[in-house]
């Protein structure tokens, strides 16, 4: 009963926030009112992949319906500004000396136009589409896992029920197939919260990115900043927990001929580069997999509209194939969502175990 009330209040708050932010904007008059714009595949795909200052929900005829998000910028020139991104009118107009740059180095971002016409990029703390999606997914994850934890604390050692029976096998899978084999029975409990968090965060955000309507559809794990931060978490934990044996193996790896270490420390440099390439590879793997999957799925979907340029009959014919391919790509993307979360967690566990390694006997090596 408590859970239903919480869900209801959450939905109510969401509805109130949305209805205050939701605004139907007419297409800007004047520029494109005569001829419909030619369909631009690249523009549509990149709009769905990239971050933005508003969340586009759908378009009815000529009116866009989108959620306006707050723009919070701090300019070194004119101080702190906070306003809703609806003031930009989809990037067409300027507001208070700020506008979304159309081209140049800061394309797509909020810049300030100074008195002499030059652009100055302010410190941008806006709640963009990705930040909103992050907050929504955090609320969702917290709701799911706090209710599971509450059930454990209330009804310990009872048969699982409801969402607990759905999530518990996955948690046990991570504990028994990722954490315990990699880290050993002694150490795995220390790192299990982080591994669980990172697995479910990546998995749920990947899945939310595949949902085409609100609150999904924001390409959060395809944002390289987000994946970079996740990889930096792994890197920090690895570095903090590195034993002296771990660092000795980097600086002075055993079993390697001496002339690779002196006079020019070739092997230590290679090993040190290896320390930094590991989080970099984690970043690129997750970002590229998710973004490439979205691009391919969107490209298949856009085939319909490309053929519509030629004739409407061709587009109807293509739509059968295109929908079939899009469904196939989406199923593949479901698999990729799980695999990428699994690989990220597995590699984090392996890096932790490498950092914790201790050699009992050195006699045979030295």
């Amino acid at each position, binding site marked *: 009963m408590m859970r239903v009330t919480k869900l209801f209040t959450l939905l109510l708050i969401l509805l109130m926030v949305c209805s205050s932010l939701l605004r139907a904007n007419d297409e800007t008059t004047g520029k494109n009112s005569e001829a419909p714009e030619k369909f631009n595949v690249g523009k549509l795909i990149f709009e769905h992949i990239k971050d933005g200052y508003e969340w586009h929900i759908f378009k009815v005829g000529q009116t866009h319906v989108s959620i306006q998000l707050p723009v919070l910028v701090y300019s070194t020139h004119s101080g702190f500004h906070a306003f809703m991104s609806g003031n930009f009118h989809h990037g067409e107009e300027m507001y208070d000396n700020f506008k979304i740059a159309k081209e140049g180095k800061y394309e797509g971002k909020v810049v300030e136009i100074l008195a002499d016409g030059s652009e100055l990029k302010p410190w941008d703390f806006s709640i963009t589409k990705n930040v909103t999606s992050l907050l929504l997914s955090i609320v969702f994850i917290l709701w799911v896992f706090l209710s599971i934890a509450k059930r454990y604390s209330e009804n310990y050692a009872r048969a699982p029920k409801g969402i607990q029976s759905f999530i518990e096998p996955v948690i046990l899978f991570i504990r028994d*197939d990722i954490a315990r084999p990699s880290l050993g029975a002694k150490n795995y409990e220390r790192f299990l919260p982080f591994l669980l968090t990172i697995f479910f965060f990546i998995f749920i955000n990947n899945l939310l990115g595949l949902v085409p309507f609100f609150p999904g559809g924001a390409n959060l794990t395809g944002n390289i900043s987000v994946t970079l931060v996740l990889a930096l978490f792994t890197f920090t934990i690895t570095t903090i927990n590195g034993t002296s044996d771990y660092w000795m193996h980097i600086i002075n790896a055993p079993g390697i001929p001496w002339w690779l270490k002196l006079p020019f420390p070739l092997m230590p440099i290679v090993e040190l580069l290896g320390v930094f390439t590991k989080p970099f*590879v984690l970043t*690129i*793997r997750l970002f*590229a*997999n998710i973004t*490439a999957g979205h691009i391919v799925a969107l490209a298949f979907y856009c085939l319909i509209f490309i053929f519509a340029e030629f004739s409407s009959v061709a587009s109807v014919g293509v739509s059968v194939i295109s929908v079939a391919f899009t469904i196939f790509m989406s199923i593949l993307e479901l698999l990729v969502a799980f*695999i*990428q979360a*699994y*690989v990220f967690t*597995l590699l984090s566990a392996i890096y932790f175990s490498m950092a914790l390694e201790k050699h009992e006997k050195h006699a045979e090596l030295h």
Partner: protein
Amino acid sequence: MTTLAIILQVAANMAIAKMGAGIGAGLAAIGAGIGIGRIGGSAVEAIARQPEVSGEIRSNMIVAAALIEAVAFFAIVICFLIIFV
């Protein structure tokens, strides 16, 4: 005559860069295809030899495939940077 040659070279630079990106992406796809194909082949062969460990072999195969795909994606990201940045 030389100005024409210079202008043609500048015009060709952008096109050659994009062609280079296309060829790079194709080579990345070939590399990923060969690597993952070999993994798949050995995995299936191992399952044929010992069907009772097919679950473990499948997990290892998927992990190795994900690692190889990461390398292929490096090349794709570089090609994207060539075209769009």
